């Protein structure tokens, strides 16, 4: 740490130059950590992606071959497709539920019920995603709670091992994501809706508008910023999901729940194909950027 005790008065320019120096000194550790452990590895990843390398032995330059493989290998493409399907469960369901709840309740009077609901809604945010995967694997098991409840309500015929059924595995995994994210979305949107001028609501109600029109003309535009933020966070969570799937299905049955995160881990470490795994990692990052940047732009221009 630069620590200066020299007198402060002097030429303004000198002060500003000194300020710049101190400023850069203050920035240096942050830049070092960021460059050292994010930018440099990113550069290494790009480098690896052009090689055929098993991580230990001699590496061979292969140009864009690994990238070509990412875009032609049906298994890898399918895993990207699955990640996009997860957006339904990680983004649309949580944000949708949150919006409906927020607009119906609109404001929660401070009180025991509100405190308890907030705490409960936040629980899934507190526990590790890996634990969520374990908890839900058990919920979804043949003898698990979901099938049991279906039996209670007379829908026992629907019972199945949800994570092992091709038709239901991906939605089932996705709903774990919904479980984790719905609380966050609801509470954030409730907070947001509380900031919208109540006079706007009173005006439109006096105008004879129903819930529906009110929702679209006041609530939705008023929450644009919050929605953009939530969509960004949840879309990134969907596209780069790993923990939940690693501890629940590991990509199965077949490859029904295979996502890029699991593929990268498996290709890079189990199959020791570092080049291909790195290329896939770079591609995943580009995809995330390509999806997230437009959302950011939308939220900005709408302000």
């Amino acid at each position: 740490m630069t620590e200066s005790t020299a007198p402060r008065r002097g030429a303004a320019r000198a002060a500003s130059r000194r300020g710049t120096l101190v400023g850069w000194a203050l920035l240096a550790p942050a830049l070092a950590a960021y460059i050292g452990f994010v930018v440099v590895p990113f550069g290494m990843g790009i480098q690896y992606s052009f090689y055929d390398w098993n991580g230990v032995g001699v590496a061979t330059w292969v140009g864009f071959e690994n990238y070509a493989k990412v875009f032609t290998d049906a298994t890898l493409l399918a895993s990207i497709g699955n990640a996009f399907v997860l957006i339904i469960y990680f983004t649309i369901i949580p944000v949708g539920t949150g919006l409906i709840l927020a607009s119906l309740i609109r404001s929660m009077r401070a009180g025991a019920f509100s405190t308890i609901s907030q705490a409960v809604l936040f629980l899934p945010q507190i526990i590790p995603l890996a634990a969520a995967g374990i908890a839900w694997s058990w919920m979804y098991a043949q003898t698990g709670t979901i099938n049991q409840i279906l039996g209670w309500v007379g829908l026992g015929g629907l019972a199945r091992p949800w994570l092992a059924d091709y038709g239901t595995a991906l939605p089932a995994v996705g709903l774990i994501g919904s479980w984790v994210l719905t609380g966050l979305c609801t509470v954030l949107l409730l907070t947001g809706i509380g900031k919208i001028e109540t006079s706007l609501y009173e005006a439109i109600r006096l105008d004879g508008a129903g819930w529906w029109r009110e929702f679209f003309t006041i609530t939705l535009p008023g929450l644009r910023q919050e929605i953009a933020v939530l969509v960004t966070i949840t879309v990134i969570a969907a596209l780069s999901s790993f923990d939940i799937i690693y501890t629940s299905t590991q990509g199965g049955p077949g490859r029904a729940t295979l996502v890029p995160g699991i593929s990268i881990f498996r290709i890079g470490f189990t199959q020791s194909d570092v080049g291909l795994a790195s290329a896939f990692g770079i591609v995943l990052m580009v995809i995330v950027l390509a999806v997230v940047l437009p959302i950011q732009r939308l939220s900005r221009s709408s302000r």
Partner: protein
Amino acid sequence: MAIHTPRGRRGIRLATGLVATAAITGLALTGCAPGTSAPTETTNADVSTELTTEEVNLVIADETGFPVTDKLAEEFTKQHPNITFTINRDTFQNLTANAPKLLASSTPPDLIRLPTIGDTVKDGLLANLDPYYDAYGWDAWPASQLAPLRMSEDGIRGSGSLYQLGLGYSITGIFMNLELADQLGIDAPPQTMAELEEDLATAKAAGVLPIMAGDKDGVVNFVVQAAMNQYADKDEFMSWMFNEPGATYNTPGNVEGAELIRKWADAGYFPSDINAIDYFTFTSRFSEGEGLFTFNGNWAAADYQKALGDDVTFFLVPPINEGDGHVAMGAANSFSVAAKSAHLDEIVYFLNWIHTDPTARQIIVDVTGASPGGDPSLPLPEVESGSLIEKALEMSAQIGAENGQVDFMANTTAGIYAGSIIPESQLLVTSKITGEEFVERVQAFYESEVG
């Protein structure tokens, strides 16, 4: 930094590491290839079969749930108090993913559970045990048992130098629930595949689950490969598992075996939630009396016996024609010594001790139910007469005598099990793909990995 390691060397290593990272970054800019240069073969000209008298701590990396290394280490330390052990455990999946990196690290474990050799020999990560083979006289051990543990310079398994040894040598077969068999009027284990199929049909018709199996983590492949073994040419199958050039998985025998599995899947011989069942669930459900048959290894004998008492027996998968030789998967619970181990002599002494010391051999049998291997002229450990373990040891001996042992196809390459065999078999046993498609897809993956 808030973390202090007791080892002072960390700071120095960190400093050199930073330099190394800088160098790597520099390389990135100049476009040099990552990785090291070709490995240099370490030849251990002088090996010692005498155990040191110094204090030595040996590190073993093993998978979770296999306590045999704990027991062996404990006994060895009892006999040789100057040798202590540190045993690190991780799940099979994590361990196999990490193994090559662990071995290449600057502080590799001395001994590591390594199901597939993969590139590790090519990269010079494993200690070549040939000098010890001569020094200890392991030529008296069954050659067929050691063959899968060898690898040639071209990376082909089955011949060449010895790189692994087994902590127990397993054999797989079929466990039958005798109480259910009794109810169904089945009085003896099937002698042919046709008889086996009859029994399966009988069970199904009576509403008894014919085969308890699971495929969340691929264990149904005990059944898939058991079927293939009976139709395939054993040597051809082995040459593929050993990665010999030109060898293929796509043989008529393998397809026939896979089609049989598809037929069984269509007939509903497997549990309906098979893809949700993992190893633990399938063994515990069979132990709870669900399923007439289950395909598993001799290592499970002790647990099944404990749960089912006298109501369970073990036999080899029957051949197609009565009287033909049996073929069964079996493998060493294979461990390799890190080339960089600082205690080569000590760890190999430990391995030799496991194969020769009566107490150690007894531990192998008692804990794993597997055969201890080693010199066949050594007395076999004592087991309770009439027990399932005794049966399992008999079967092991029988396969040895018939020379009918094949490796597990999951060990063919490092990535094939998780990358192809598990997902494709999940599709096969739920009738989503045909046996032929299964075989073709696994072969395609194999080519992409080996080719």
